[in-house]
């Protein structure tokens, strides 16, 4: 019984951690610019795809990962400069549709550059499962969990301890005031996109050995990440990760204990219930209009 429970929990945590990181990427951009970036899943795809290609070309994994992160960050900045900056104060739904368009573009380019096939990356430290109280865990799952903790910590440290991070928070709190104290808003917004892309790409690199990657992998991840973000409470980095873990866990437990066919339905109903009981998400404020 316990072994089964643990197995389900591990599955949920691993999958949920990825949702959480994607949601964290959403949060950074949303906080800084008010844009709900539906191309967030594409950053995850870029992270996985570029790493796979570089490793395939003989580049050692750490360097390949670095290249992938740089490529993703550049795409993030390009996206902000070319598509978001010119319409910065357009209504939210217009910005959403622009990012949907951007996702189509990134996906289209990826299909041409990397092809349409599935790709895999070797597990970082082998695929011999580790036994833990009767449950069996892949080492890569531990990499994903450790990576998530590391990313969340780094983001927290960056936002709270560095000047740039504080400038980012200031911008999201009150753009006009931030401008008045001399913060370069345009630079900060580009930074938010770059950072968010880096986080997405990191998730892609960590998770590709488990989930594989392909040009269209981002669509579903963006969807789940968006749900996790709203579930956790829009705008709170910690809430995003908690939302992701909750979503992942509810999927895994529903698959294990209830019905594998309707496991996603269970997760969705849970989400609707949470929203109706707490209209601002778990860690959000009721109503939660962004100010």
């Amino acid at each position, binding site marked *: 019984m316990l072994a089964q429970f643990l197995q389900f929990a591990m599955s949920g945590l691993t999958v949920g951690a990825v949702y959480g990181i994607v949601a964290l990427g959403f949060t950074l951009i949303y906080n800084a610019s008010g844009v*709900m970036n539906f191309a967030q899943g594409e950053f995850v795809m870029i992270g996985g795809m570029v790493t796979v290609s570089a490793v395939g070309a003989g580049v050692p994994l750490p360097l390949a990962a670095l290249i992938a992160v740089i490529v993703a960050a550049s795409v993030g900045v390009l996206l902000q400069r*070319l*598509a978001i900056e*010119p*319409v910065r104060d*357009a*209504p*939210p*739904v*217009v910005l*959403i*549709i*622009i990012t*949907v*368009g*951007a*996702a*189509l*573009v*990134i*996906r*289209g*380019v990826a*299909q*041409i550059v990397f092809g349409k096939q599935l790709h895999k990356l070797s597990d970082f430290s082998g695929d011999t499962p580790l036994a833990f109280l009767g449950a069996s865990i892949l080492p890569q799952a531990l990499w994903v969990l450790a990576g998530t903790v590391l990313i969340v910590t780094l983001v927290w440290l960056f936002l709270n301890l560095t000047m740039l991070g504080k400038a980012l928070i200031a911008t999201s709190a009150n753009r006009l005031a931030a401008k008045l104290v001399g913060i370069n808003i345009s630079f900060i917004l580009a930074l938010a996109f770059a950072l968010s892309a880096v986080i997405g790409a990191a998730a892609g690199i960590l998770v590709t050995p488990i989930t594989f990657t392909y040009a269209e992998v981002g*669509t579903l991840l963006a*969807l789940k990440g*968006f*749900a996790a973000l*709203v*579930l956790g409470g*829009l705008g709170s980095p910690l809430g995003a990760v908690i939302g992701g873990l909750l979503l992942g866990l509810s999927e895994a437990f529903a698959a294990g204990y209830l019905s594998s*066919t*309707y496991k*996603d*339905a269970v997760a*969705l*109903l849970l*989400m*609707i219930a949470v*929203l*109706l009981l707490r*209209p*601002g*998400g778990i860690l959000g404020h009721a*109503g*939660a*209009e*962004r100010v």
Partner: protein
Amino acid sequence: MMARFRQNRWFEPALIALIIIIIGLVLPSTYYFRIATLVLIAGLSATGLNLLLGYAGQISLGHAGFVGIGAYAVAVLPAKFAVPSLLAIFCGTLVSGVVALIIGRPILRLKDHFLAVATLAFGILIAMVLNNEQWLTGGPDGMAVSRIELFGIRIRSAQSWYWISGTVLVLAVVLARNLLDSSTGRALRALHDSEVAARSAGIDVARIKSIVFVISAVFASLSGSLYALFNGHVTPDIASFLNSIEIVTMVVLGGMGSLSGGLVGAVILVVLPQALSFFHEYEHLLLGVLMILILVFMRAGIVPTLAARWARGRL
């Protein structure tokens, strides 16, 4: 003089009807009729969503769910329960309307992105049921839809469907226009500008939102029924998240808060992929680039932007 003409509530529906008639007279082949019919059917759900998104300012990322209900109503009811197709269309709209009424009240209390994600979840749930309940819906491979019979004649040609869809669309636009010109419409505009102000002006905000949600769901359901009957085959894709996004994209590209805008959006999203299929590998890439370009240079959407430019040029 033209300006006064344009303010008449019959102007827009009449113009749309005229365009539909003229195009219907010049289209050369079944294929063109098929594309044009798909535009009209998509235009119907876009018109409904435009009332919700463009006028009431409430987003829905799950509208394809209602399209799915309408489509499967005309597929399942005649095939499994011997309900005549016409009655099935009505059942579909009734179910969609009631569902919208039931879920609308609690869900529409949510704002912006919270509303987006709640409607998104609703749409995915519908698609999931259609996909999984194979005994009823045929599962992921879908099911055939029996042709509709009117006065003993089986309607199957794309030409007939073009005229039927055109008529329904024009009626829908007339209905929408009249709604917008009524007291409900004025309340809607107040709501769109500021919910707080609307509420303090004594408008029953929850009721208004709920009415518009139900109407837009009924339009979507109707468009789903037309699509299924016209197509003769239906799969759960019709209720997919991507389809919901497509309807929103039509409204945003064409112009939120402009009925003809939604239709122009429908033309773009239906016709463009056909034109771009020539470019094969680059199809999605080009579609994405065009979407971005249109919104960067015409952020209010095509029709409102062009209308504003035209007005500035003339006045």
